């Protein structure tokens, strides 16, 4: 593998990590809102249990993507920065409202409900909007003016069906991943009634994600035809992805010795596998372009000296942080007492 391929693989790994973590994060915020007033279930509390300690860490992954893009592909950062100024600024505003209002809602009972509504609803839009970077990267929405300035045809994007099918795909995926994750999280804490609530939601969301994924492929802009045919060439990845979906989705019905049917751990793992395989296929089809047809990975890659320094910094960073991540996982994802305890979503401190 050459440097550009290694760099794009690392970048892709970060994007994938954020896609999953962000989906679960924003989706959990939405479910916390949906079940907020329902006294018969602890679904909202379970969602908040996950969300309170994890949203900051999830947010860092988003910054990590921006920084990795600048570091590995400075020229691509120039293009994306110039082209995406308006949509990304809007996402930033939504993200700020979402995070700060969520924290505020934990800290005050006075406006708690309205704050929770605003943060839940803004959050649900963010993954969808972030996903609309994909159609932009495929071509047809960027114009280069005579003084060599790239610029986004925002109006054209807003009028095109591909934007809305990507938005729909983003939102359904987010909710599906969050329900699966939360069903497993509730199951981990032996909270079977909450598990039942999320399992039920996952049952109808699963097929919907597949439908919107197919819709997104069929509504591609004419300029993006190249990727459709290339996706066809990558059919083994997508076949494996559908199989992985089948296994994960059916795991919701697998029989257990006791209790409610379904193995949520398998379901969430295989569905993450489904997204992994599909995005591998999609990613390979997308290469070598970062922004079709203007920027390829080989043109945009940074110089070898900086590339090596970045790799060293990644290795050291991962080694230093691994124990911290392990501790975090033990305390918030494995501890039955933490997930299950008490009715309040508010921190003790």
């Amino acid at each position, binding site marked *: 593998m050459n440097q550009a391929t290694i760099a794009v693989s690392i970048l892709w790994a970060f994007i994938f990590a954020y896609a999953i973590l962000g989906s679960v994060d924003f989706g959990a915020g939405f479910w916390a809102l949906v079940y907020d007033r329902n006294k018969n279930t602890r679904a909202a509390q379970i969602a908040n249990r996950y969300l*309170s*300690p*994890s949203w*900051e*860490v999830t*947010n*860092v992954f*988003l*910054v990590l993507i*921006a*920084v*990795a*893009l*600048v*570091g590995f592909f*400075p020229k691509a*950062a*120039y293009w*994306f*920065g*110039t082209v*995406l*100024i*308006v949509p*990304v*600024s809007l996402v*930033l*505003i939504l*993200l*700020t*409202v979402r*995070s*700060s209002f969520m*924290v*505020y809602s934990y*800290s*005050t009972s*006075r406006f708690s409900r309205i704050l929770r509504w605003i943060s839940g609803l803004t959050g649900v839009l963010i993954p969808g909007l972030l996903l609309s970077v994909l159609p932009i990267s495929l071509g047809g929405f960027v114009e280069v003016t005579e003084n060599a*300035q790239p610029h986004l045809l925002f109006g054209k994007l807003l009028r095109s069906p591909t934007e809305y099918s990507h938005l729909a795909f983003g939102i359904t995926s987010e909710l599906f991943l969050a329900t699966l994750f939360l069903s497993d999280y509730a199951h981990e804490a032996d909270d079977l009634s909450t598990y039942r609530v999320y399992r039920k939601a996952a049952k109808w969301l699963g097929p919907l994600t597949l439908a919107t994924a197919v819709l997104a492929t069929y509504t591609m802009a004419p300029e993006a035809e190249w990727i459709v045919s290339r996706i066809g060439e990558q059919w083994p990845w997508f076949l494996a992805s559908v199989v992985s979906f089948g296994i994960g989705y059916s795991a919701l019905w697998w029989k257990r010795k006791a209790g409610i049917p379904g193995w949520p751990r398998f379901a969430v793992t295989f569905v993450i596998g489904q997204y992994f395989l599909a995005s591998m296929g999609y990613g390979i089809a997308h290469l070598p372009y970062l922004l079709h047809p203007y920027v390829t990975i080989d043109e945009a890659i*940074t*110089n070898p*000296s*900086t590339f090596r*320094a*970045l790799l060293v*910094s*990644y290795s050291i*960073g991962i080694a*230093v*942080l691994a124990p*911290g991540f392990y*501790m*975090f996982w033990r*305390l*918030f994802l494995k*501890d039955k007492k*933490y997930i299950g305890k008490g009715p309040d979503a508010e*921190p*003790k*401190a």
Partner: protein
Amino acid sequence: MDSVVLARALFGTSMAFHIIFATLGVGVPLMIVFAEIMSGITKNPDYSVMAKRWTKAQAILLGVAIPSGTIVGVMLSLLWPGFMEIVGQVISVPFQIEIWAFFLEALFMSIYIYAADRLSRKLRIFSVIMVSLGSAASAVLITNVHAWMNTPTGFKYVDGVVSDVNALKAVFNPSFGVTAFHVVASAFMTGAFCIGSIAAYKLLKRGQPERERIYHRKCLQLALFVGFTCSLATALNGHLTAQMLHNYLPLKLAAAEGLFETTDHAPLEIFGSTNVEEQRVVGGIQIPWVLSFLAADRFDTVVKGLNDFPRELWPPLYVHTLFNLMVVIGTGLLALSFFALFITFIRKRPLPKWMLALLMVGGPLSLIGIETGWIFSCTGRQPWVISGVQLTADAATRSQDIGILFALFIGLYVMLMAITILVMRFYFRRRPIGPELTPLEGR
């Protein structure tokens, strides 16, 4: 306004907003560390109450600090694509490591806040030290890029092409050490003075129960110790910063001091405004010879004046006022905390009301010092974004939509500032300090 001015206005406003939360995010965790340590040493439960309440306040601030930091981090690429193209090739490593520091802070902040009751004492202190370390390291690393913008090294830039990159040389550029120290020490100082402000306010209020006054006095004393130590460190380092400016950025020093003619035995000008027609600072207080001494520890040091440089490369001359505000606030707070400590611990008297009143404005003042210091450093670099390498105008986006984005972001910041203040008030009003404190002995 043209798009460059708008881009600067939008980015400057975003930074000015974020820097409040970022600075407190570095300063307050250090105070929590000290409260935890004091609680371990003295076994006095008041200190663990302090740690808990400051942590809660910090958790609310983080709700804004993290998204606003995300905004500026991403906005760099949106507003300054030409700049980030060079940054990416030359100095992306500190940005990258900053993310690891950010992770460290976020992971352990959650662990400290949400798992405190499941951790041993040692692990709890370890977690909050990691938070403090992570936030201070973020500050150092981001300052690294800022220092490199002032004194860029480690690459060549000819006709828009970057070559001969030496990442280590770029990181260890000449102003990195002094500037990073300055930023971290002043952030620690600001955290301490802000906490001191609240304690002073509570002590000034009439009719507070004696038990609560004892608690607030302890808060104030801890804040004064940290505030004094860190403002002393900031001031001493400020002297080194002046020497760095003298050696590497003489034009910035000349603009900061309103010095037009190159001269030895150069005077220090305090306040007043720099007047180009009269070629001097009008209405200021002049202290002869001192600038030369500050620049290189000798009165006969020759300090370069503005007239030695082409006019089109001058930064705006109002940076003199920004520079003065920063220095005067820093020195004032140093003196104030010194006298307050002297009265408390040497003369063993309660602090007089007027001094408490001054300490009450200490926190806001130190935030103003932080703001003016940053604006001075960035405006004093103009017209360059990377000193001597890239003009700000060449780095900016050409987007025509910044005007509307500017309005949206201003609205966002005003709203967040108002709601943050409201939430803080509601939260602490609903949880008054009284019931959290153990009763006085003998009652």
